[in-house]
Structures are given as C-alpha cells and as structure tokens.
C-alpha cells in the first residue's frame, strides 16, 4: 500500500466469530497449566526452594491412598452439587449468590430432624424426615428472594447475599440454645451411640461416603436432564434470554422464576442433608465452608453445563485440598490453599477473554518476523 495510516495501534483486539473446540481446549488447557505454575511460584516465594515439593505434596494429599482419593471425590461431589443447584438459577439470569445460606438452612433442617425426631423413629423414616426438612428449609430460604424478585423486581444479588448472613445467625442461635452440656457453642455429633438417623455406611476403601456420592451423581444427572431436555428447563432459559419474549409466547414469568429458584433451593437442601446426615452428624455455622461462594465460580466457569462443572469442581477441589496438605508439610500457613484457589479462578475466568477475543500485537509480530529473518540469514551463512 502506498500510503500507510498515520497511526499504528500498539495492540488490537477483535472478537472471534467462530471458536473451534480445539482452540477452546488449547486456551483453557494453557491457562490451567499457567495457573498451576503460578501457584508453585507463589509457594516458592513463601518457602524458598519448595517449588517442586509443593506439587509433590499436592498429589500426596489427594491421590496417594484410595481413602484420600475417596475423600477428594466426596468433596468434589459436594462442590459439584452446589454448582448444580446454582445452574438453573444462573441459566435464568437470576444471580443467586445465596447458596451458602440455602445449604446452611438445609443442614439446619436435617439437624432438627436428627436431633428431635430421629431418636424416636426407625432410621429409614428418620432419614426421609431429615431429607424433607432439609429440602423444605432450603427451598423456603430460596423462595423468599425469588418471590420478591418476581413481584417487586428487587435485586436478587443483594437479597440472596443478605439471606446468607441471616442463615448464619439463625444457625448460630440454634447452636447456642441446643449446645452440648459443658461445651460452649458446639453440638457434639448427635446420636453417636445409636447412629439413629445417620446415613447407612458401607465400607469401601475405608471410606463411608459411597452412598453420598451416589446420591450426588443421581441429582446431578437429573438436573442436567432437566436443564437440557425438559419443558421447564426450556422455559427458564427463555426467561433468562429475554423476559419480553417469554411473555410474548405466554410463559408466566413470575411462576417460572419462583419455580426455578425453589428447585435451586431444593438441591441446596440436598447438600445440607448430605453434610449432616451423611457427614458430620452435627451442625456448625461454617459447615458449608464457603462452598456456596466457590460454587458460583465453578458454575460460571463451567458455563452452566453440568459435565463442565464436574471438571471444574474436580480441578478446584484438587487445588484447594492439595495445597492445604502442602501447607501442613511446608513452613507456611493454611491460607495458601485459599490463595491458590483464588489464583486458579482468576486465571481460568480471565482465559475466557482469549476464547472470545483475538489479540493482535503488530509490533510483536514484526519483532518475531525480524528474529526469524535473522535466523534464516544465519542459517544461510552457515550453509555457505
């Protein structure tokens, strides 16, 4: 071209119109590798020389024995289930960040069953009652913001966030009123002598989470099918896509909002039930341990798609429990596990930028071309 533009841009960004699957895989794969590398470097800064040992401990803490691996799976399952609970809500563009509170209320429902009813009825019946109570509590907790959203168009993000704190407060007062005599602010595992209302345990590699994992798998498959193939699932994505379109085709938007969020709450209730009846058999205000928040990122990164969410649940649980193990062996605090999780998510979510956009750096390209030319020249010279 005879005339060049007066301005050459330093960096140019353009939207990718069609992203191929392999490009997506390469970009996400590269970002995961980069994230792992970065975590190792952070560990190395905290404890010089620990770069390789960090990865070693990470694997030790997650894969070394069948029992440890089963525990990892149980944690993966819990993370997945919370993410699965959020998926219908998110797909409907209802930004439910109250999964933490909803799971906690579910756990409270299960504990109430375990505490007041389980000693008096057969275990089978007790489990059903606990399950129903957990679902009821969590569903009600989710339905409150949904009803406000549907009828008064309140902001669901703030609303569900505040509901988390209320749930924490309610559970804390429940604990104080029912604390084990002689202990302050805790309840010892309930019915530990009779195991009344406990999930039945079969031993599999010295591990008692088998039934829990089966339940999680079942629920995940059901929700996956619900989102993908059912009329309800279709309706909620129409509402998420455009409420005007939903009205135009005669969908009752209010009904769909409430129904979907109640479903979201029900799945959170299952999480609460599993945490109590299949896990600790007691309750504390931190029993959900932040999964309600981490799952938001899992759900988002997995693009509301259940198999992808499974992948990310696995990765993130591996990173957090692995680095937690590493922190007990290496000379720094347990907080490294949180740092690692955060770094991981930031990089994974940032990588979606490269999935959606193409970055052209003209000067870098020129530089590379120049270097290539230089090498070619040298090769030629060498050949001569």
């Amino acid at each position, binding site marked *: 071209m005879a*005339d060049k*533009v007066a301005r050459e841009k330093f960096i140019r960004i353009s*939207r*990718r119109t069609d992203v191929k699957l392999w490009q997506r895989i390469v970009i996400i794969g590269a970002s995961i590798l980069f994230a792992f590398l970065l975590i190792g470097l952070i560990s190395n800064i905290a404890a010089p020389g620990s770069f390789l040992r960090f990865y070693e401990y990470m694997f030790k803490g997650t894969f070394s024995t069948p029992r440890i691996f089963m525990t990892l799976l149980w944690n993966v399952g819990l993370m997945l289930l919370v993410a699965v609970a959020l998926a219908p809500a998110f797909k409907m563009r209802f930004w439910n960040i109250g999964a933490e509170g909803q799971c906690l209320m579910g756990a409270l429902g299960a504990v109430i069953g375990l505490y007041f009813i389980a000693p008096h009825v057969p275990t089978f019946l007790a489990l059903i009652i606990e399950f129903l109570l957990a679902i009821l509590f969590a569903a009600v907790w989710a339905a409150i913001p949904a009803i406000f959203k549907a009828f008064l168009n309140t902001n669901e993000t703030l609303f569900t966030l505040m509901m988390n704190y209320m749930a924490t407060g309610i559970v804390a007062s429940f604990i104080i009123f029912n604390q084990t005599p002689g202990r302050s602010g805790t309840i010892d595992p309930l019915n530990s002598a009779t195991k009344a209302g406990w999930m039945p345990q079969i031993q599999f590699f010295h591990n008692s989470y088998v039934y829990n994992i089966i339940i999680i798998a079942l629920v995940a498959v059901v929700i996956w099918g619900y989102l993908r193939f059912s*009329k309800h699932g279709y309706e909620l*994505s129409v509402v998420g*896509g455009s409420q005007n379109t939903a009205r*135009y*085709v*005669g969908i009752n938007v209010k009904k769909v909002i409430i129904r979907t969020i109640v479903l979201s709450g029900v799945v959170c209730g299952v999480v609460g039930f599993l945490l109590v009846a299949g896990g600790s058999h007691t309750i504390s205000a931190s029993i959900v341990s932040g999964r309600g928040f981490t799952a938001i990122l899992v759900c988002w990164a997995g693009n509301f798609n259940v198999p992808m969410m499974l992948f990310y649940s696995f990765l993130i649980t591996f990173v957090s429990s692995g680095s937690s193990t590493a922190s007990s062996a290496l000379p720094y605090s347990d907080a490294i596990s949180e740092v690692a999780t955060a770094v991981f998510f930031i990089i994974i979510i940032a990588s979606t930028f490269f999935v959606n956009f193409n970055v052209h750096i003209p000067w870098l390209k020129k530089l590379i071309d120049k270097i290539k030319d230089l090498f070619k020249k040298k090769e030629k010279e060498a050949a001569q």
Partner: protein
Amino acid sequence: MLTTSNNIKVVELKNITKVFGSKVANLNVNLDLYKGEILSILGENGSGKTTSMNIISGLYAPDEGSIYINGELAKINSPHDSLMYGIGMVHQHFKLVDVFTAAENIVLGLDKQDYANFAKKIEEQEESRFAELRKQGKEPSEEELKESKKRINAAKSFNIKNAASRIKEMCDRYGFELDPNKKVYNMTVSEKQTLEIVKALYRNANILILDEPTAVLTPQEIDRLFMVIQNMRNDGKSIVIITHKLNEVMRISDRVAIFRKGEHVATVETNKTSIKELTDMMVGAKVDLEIERSTPTDVADRLFVNNLSVKNNDGRVVINDVSFVARSGEILGIAGISGSGQKELLEAIQGLRPLESGEIIFHNPKKDKPATFFHKTLKKIKALAAHGAFHDPDGKRINFKGMSNKEIRKMVNDCKVLFYEDEIVNLKGKNPLQIRELGIRLSFVPEDRLGMGLVSNMNLVDNTMLRSYRHGHWIFLDRERPRKLIEKIIKELDVSTPGTNTQISKLSGGNVQKVLVGREIALAPKVFMAAYPVRGLDINSSYTIYNLLDKQKCSGIAVIYVGEDLDVLLALCDRIMVLCDGRISGFVDARKATKEQIGEMMTRHGEVQ
C-alpha cells in the same frame, strides 16, 4: 441543475480498508467529496457506508489507507480530531443529554482551545469582510470595528448567553427553527436532529455527515430538512447523506456514491442516472422491484377493536379511543410517526398489555366447521350445545339430549358436531397463553425481533419451538418437529445460516427476520400482525417479506402491517389507518391516497395539541 462548479476536494479517502474480525467492512474505498456539494452515500445495510463515514468522523481508525482533508494528510484519531478538521457527524441515534437545554448541549464538551479557535475564525471572517470593503474603497467605520472586536472577545470565553445569540444567528442564516432554551426531553425528533446539526455547525463544521437523517421524519419535516441542507450547500458547505431511500437521493443530492459489500462501486451524477440504475448498482444484479398487491377476495370482518385505550410502560396513555376492524383477505396498514402508539396497539391485541378501556373482539370463522376437543372440554361443548351453538351435517340443531358422554365424544370426534355460527370471543383481559388455549391463532412479528420475538442466545431450533414447545403432555421437549419446521423455513425462505444449531444472534438481520416470520406463518394464523418487519433488512429480503405478507392475505388471513415507508404502505396495503398521538386521524384507501395526504394526517392532531 445543481452541479459542482468548483473542483476543490475537501475530503479524499484513499484505499481505506477496515476489518472487523473476519468481516471486511470497507475494502479499498476511494472517495472524494467536493466543496459545496451534497453527496449521497447509497447502499444496503451492511454495505459499509456508515463504517466509512465513521472513519472520517474519527470513531474508527482505518486498518489501511489514508484520509486527506483539504489536500493534506489528516491524522484523525478521535471525533474531536475530526471536528478540528471541520467535520461534523449527525448519528442516526442522537447523542444528546435529555435534561439539558439546546444551548447547553451545544456548548457541552468545548474547551479553551475550541473557544480560541472560534475567536480566530471570527477574526478571519471579519478581516476578510473588511478587506472586501477596503477593495471597494470604503473604510470600515469606527463603530463597526468596535462591534467586530466585541464579537471576537465574546467568542473567546464560555458564556451561555453569547452561545445562545450565536445559535440564533446561525439558525436565521440557514433557516433552522430551534429554541436555544428548550430542554431536549421536550423536543420532537425533528427538533433533536436540528439541534445535532446546529451543534456540528457551531463547531465550525464545513463538512456535515448525516446518517439516515430522514428515517424518523414526516414528509413535511423532510421538506424542511432538505431546504436547510440546500441552504448550507449554497453557503459552501459539503454535506454527506447516508441513506437507502432512493427517491430522496434523486431529490436532494448532486452526486451519489454507491456502496456494495464494503466496496465503493461507483459515483454517479444524480441528474444522469435513474432509480432503476441506482438499485441495480446497489444490489449488484437486476432486481424486480414490484410489490405484489392482489385484489382482496372473500373479505370478512375478523378482528374488531372497539374504543381501545392502552398505556405504555411509563403509564402514559398512548392509544386513545381507537376503533377499527381488521378484515380477512386484506392488509390493513398502520401509518404514523414512530412512537404514536403502534407498538402498544399490537401488543394489546396480542394480549401482552392490559387494556385501559375498550375491547378486542375476535370473530373465529367457525361456521359449519366441526367442533373439536383441542380447545374445548366436553363440559364446554355441552354448555354451548344447550345454547344451540351446533348443528349436525343435515342442518338440524344439536342439543345432546338423552346421549351419554361416550356418545357425545364419538359424535364430536366423528366431526358431526358443526358450529352454527362464527364464534365470537372477547380477548379483553386474556394473556397470550389463554388466547392460544381458546384456539385463536394470532401471529405477531414484533418490532424488537431479538428482544421480544426470539431469544438471541438460543439456536434456530430452540427459537422455532418457542411457539410450539408445549405440544403434548410429556414433560420433555420434542426437538424433532421444530427441527423439521426450521429446515423447511430455511429452504423455502432461503435463510442463509451455517446450520440449525447456530445461535440466532450470529445471523444477519434479514435472516433473523425470515426465521421469525417463517415461524409465525407456520402457526397458520387467522390474524397476522407485523410491526416494522423490514426495518434493517436489505432490499431483496424486504421484498421477500412484502410478498409473503401478500401471500398471507390471499390465503384469507387478516394482515395488519405497521410500516414507516409511506411508499411501501401505499403499494402493499389495501386500507391504511393513520395514527397520530395515539388517536386515529383517519382511514384511507391505499389505492387512491397520496403520500402527502397521509403525511399531513400523521401530524394533524399534533398541531391541535
């Protein structure tokens, strides 16, 4: 005839190329603009006309090529740079602050440097005026010199009063009508446009680019705009009009530049060309631009709208006491300035908007047609029979006396229960779902295709089943039937798409509209309503849609068409209802009425107010 007498090039585009992703918006565009001419830029949507103008006005940077202004290589990196070169652009969507007055909007964003430039400019003007005087042997008087100094000083700093007086002066010069103290939210569309033009002129723009200036104006307002544009041209300014309306191109411009698929195809002098030639160049092939209009047959009253009043989202009454009848086998056109309540009217009929007063009555053509259990329960059929609503194939009334439920069911299923008369249904207070359940099929192509008719992040199949996904009692979806339907639509309407699983927002406007219209036609409706169905579509797609509407009419459907192009309304419709400010200002016979007549009716109520 008006031709460019001088050959001073004010803008020269050389080999401009602009690429968005994989889409080439402009390819090697070479374009000249002369001093004192009106240049039309003609092209279909997506042909790159707006992109090239956005490059001149500094919104986009070209990937390749250069811009020369007054013969010098220009560095345009922002709209502000472009203004420094005297280029002003009036965008299709106005960029004004609603709560500010006209004058405040005009001075918004000016800095010290701009004021200094204004003062310099005025000084130059005054000096050249004095020089002219001196040439004639007259010395400017003391008073005149004083006056001139005052004006220069006044221009040097910000003062809203000075600004207002300068705006007045400018308006008088070119024939604008603009009140500097009027707030933007009180202005009509035409006033806002005037304000945008004055805003550019205030910044000493010598080159004015207008993007689709007539799209929202009435014929009378267009006349006024064209007069002003001619005044500016005669004052030595260069004006570029981006448009796709051929008759306006012929009327106003000196030269026409035609764009096609990102390339500048040709520039012709207006008085040496014809509409036919321009269209052929624009489309790239010879096109048949006849809108088919069949003679209505079997006309029957289908939909009665009686004394209807409807509010918009802000709670303002936008449809006020409107009554009309839509007839089967006829296209009823609705004309009016955009925002006169057309949208709300159609939404009210569709059941999307509550009625303030009045009613909508649907005449379901059921006479001598069998009753079915699709939309009626056994109980309902029995109740209707008690009122004598049915007759048997021999013409005798049916009352089901002494028959068991089983026998009645058999009789209905054997199609032996026929309606005695058309069914009359009041749609008031019914939502879209209830209307569907009554067995009344209303098709509606809304103005906001992706926001109301479709879901932009869903694929074609999922969008096709929006209307039909409820079929059957099974809780799971049947995607097979919609897939077959969309494949048929793609084939019949020539939709260009990579596949049926493509996200609909990736399709171009015309193809999106074909999917929507195809889906609505597939409903086999009794009433077909379309609001601005060709907005944003290229010529070929537009004519496809017009002919589809005519075909619907021939198959005995009552078609209601809301349009903005009066030429099309007159060529396509049978009757036209003209709305003004939410009231009916009259009905005209589309075969006899003229554009001017409708244009006047569109504004009549407005002046009474």
